[in-house]
């Protein structure tokens, strides 16, 4: 128990103290110029979603006729090795915010750095990947800048009449999607999940592309949280799987058949949020709006009811097969092939059939 006596040195009270209390964003809409993409990096390695966003950002910037900037935050050593790669991804400009406090991602130094960059350069639009750190940063930064944030967009476009960024967001329940914009506050911020946009196959360095460091000032006050330990193993990348077999609530916790099927056809196992929340599958296998957006050649949904938060995750699949006992399940509206039956009856003969064919082929 924390005793009052122990806390005497504490001078903080819980009281609102954000710069956002001014109730307005740092510059008016007419002064916002350019489209920024945050290129998230860890230890000098880029997150894949940054590439995807630069690909989409190029199209949006061209539609607006504005420059596209890639923004890198980190320490000098990590960023030095990334400048060439960032230039090759098609941005008009690579902007660098460097400080030793940015060696590892922690919320406050990264928020302070990006806030300073934005106030100095005044971009109209800022796009971030909806990764763990991207979401951590975006939510905090949007309030510091007192601006609007459209999170987890499944598409981005430019409204022709106004030049405003429009983010498409899946609503809950079946099939309604909302289009969100931020008319007055700047920058217009949006986050996008990894896998929503395809990584551009080829990108070309712009002839005039330039690199520029922008001075930032961070202090000890920006560093209250300390990283004691960071353990990351090679995670699976569902966005690149050629096929996924997805288990939902209908599996009642038994993923064995799904795993067997996935092994047989060289697919990755995916799961709905319900299945992950139940602890039947690890979080990194969650597909959907709050998981990963996949773009496989084949997705097989087993015992998945088909809430729109899930189905947006397989929207880019070339073919969808769904197996569910409930003929009314919304998953069948987004399936190419439907089997209305109990998956525990459907899968065993299918596995036998696939195994037989495999043996026959040998």
């Amino acid at each position, binding site marked *: 128990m*924390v005793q009052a006596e122990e806390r005497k040195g504490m001078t903080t009270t819980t009281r609102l*103290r954000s710069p956002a209390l001014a109730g307005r964003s740092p510059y008016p809409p007419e002064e916002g110029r350019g489209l920024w993409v945050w290129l998230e990096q860890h230890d000098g390695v880029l997150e894949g979603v940054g590439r995807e966003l630069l690909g989409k950002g190029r199209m949006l910037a061209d539609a607006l006729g504005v420059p596209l900037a890639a923004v890198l935050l980190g320490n000098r050593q990590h960023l030095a090795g990334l400048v060439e790669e960032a230039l090759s991804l098609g941005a008009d400009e690579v902007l660098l915010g460097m400080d030793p406090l940015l060696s590892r991602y922690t*919320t406050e130094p990264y928020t302070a750095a990006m806030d300073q960059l934005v106030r100095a350069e005044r971009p109209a639009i800022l796009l971030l990947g909806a990764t763990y750190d991207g979401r951590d*940063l975006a939510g905090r930064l949007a309030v510091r800048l007192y601006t609007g944030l459209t999170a987890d967009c499944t598409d981005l476009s430019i409204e022709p009449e106004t030049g405003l960024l429009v983010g498409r967001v899946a609503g809950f329940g079946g099939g309604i999607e909302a289009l*969100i914009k931020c008319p007055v506050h700047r920058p217009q911020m949006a986050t996008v999940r990894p896998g929503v946009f395809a990584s551009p196959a080829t990108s070309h360095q712009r002839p005039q592309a330039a690199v520029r460091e922008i001075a930032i000032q961070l202090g000890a006050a920006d560093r209250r949280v300390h990283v*004691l330990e960071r353990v990351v193993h090679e*995670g699976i990348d569902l966005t690149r799987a050629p096929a996924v077999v997805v288990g939902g609530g209908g599996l009642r916790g038994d993923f064995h058949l799904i795993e067997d099927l996935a092994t047989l056809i060289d697919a990755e196992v995916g799961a709905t949020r319900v299945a992950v929340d139940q602890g039947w599958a690890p979080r990194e296998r969650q597909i959907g709006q709050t998981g990963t957006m996949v773009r496989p050649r084949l997705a097989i949904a087993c015992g998945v009811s088909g809430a729109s938060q899930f189905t947006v995750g397989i929207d880019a699949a070339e073919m969808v097969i769904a197996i569910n006992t409930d003929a009314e399940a919304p998953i069948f509206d987004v399936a190419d092939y439907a089997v209305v039956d109990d998956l525990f009856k459907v899968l065993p003969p*299918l596995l036998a059939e696939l195994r037989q064919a495999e043996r026959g082929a040998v």
Partner: protein
Amino acid sequence: MLDRNVGMPGTNGHYPSTGFHLVVCVKAVPKPEEVRVNQETRTLDRGSARTEINPSDMHALEMALALRDRYGGRVSLLSMGPPLFVPYLQVGLAMGADGAYLLSDRAFGGADTLATSYTLAKGIERLAQQMGNCDLILCGEESSDGATGQVPAGIAEWLGLPQVTFVTKVSLATSANGDGVRIAGDGMVVAQPDRAIQAEAPSIQVHRELRGGHELLHVPLPALLSVATGANVPRFLDPARWTWAKKAEVTVWDAPAVAADPALIGAPGSATQVAGLEQGGRSERRRHQIHGTSTETARALAALIRGALSIERGQNEREVERR
């Protein structure tokens, strides 16, 4: 500098303001699988959907209750919404929370994450005033209806508090004598690591989920955490407590009660606008149903699978559809 009224009894007389004060932000949401779309009007029909405490918030509440059970202190529930949220807060009381507060005012309506995080921050400020302080604020990682996960970070920014999102474990850090707290793997060399983060204030050690891993963080209090879904198993409500909780008072605060700036709440305080609603499911699917005996179905599926993953695809699809 110390203006926290430590040790003063709470002004509402519910309980004294000593000890660890944990605030849990909760929201009641319609069960997503029960929300239907009216295809004619293209609006959401929530009428038939049952409401529940946002599943993610249950993990935050469980974490707060477990911390209180271990270290002592109080757990306060805070929510923003219509008066019909009261029974859900009472469920939280029956699970073990000590007090419940609802921010309810028509002026709060139509809020995006900017205005919502401001309003909740004002509620926390009011709670801190009443109770002495808030040591730790816990939120669910995201709401199942909005699913943006941006409110917790927003609250932390309004209050100027350190934040950690996607937390799976928390414990109080070792004492200020500095045994065992070290900065490592941080990419920075600190000459005297123990002294460098030796805070006068109490602090916590927090596990944060990452893609394919985790990090361990040292965080001074007060702070805000968003709790990863699945971090723990929320307890059931205590039937004996429910007898009390279902009649327990939930303090309702309107905008003036928390001194909220009318320009920063509800629709006026929101930066984003809904420009339109569209029918989802953009890609057209074939919606072909496969009938037949289990053997026939297995053969058809196997053919489709082989086809999709090889080049003979078109032919196999035509065959299945002909049947």
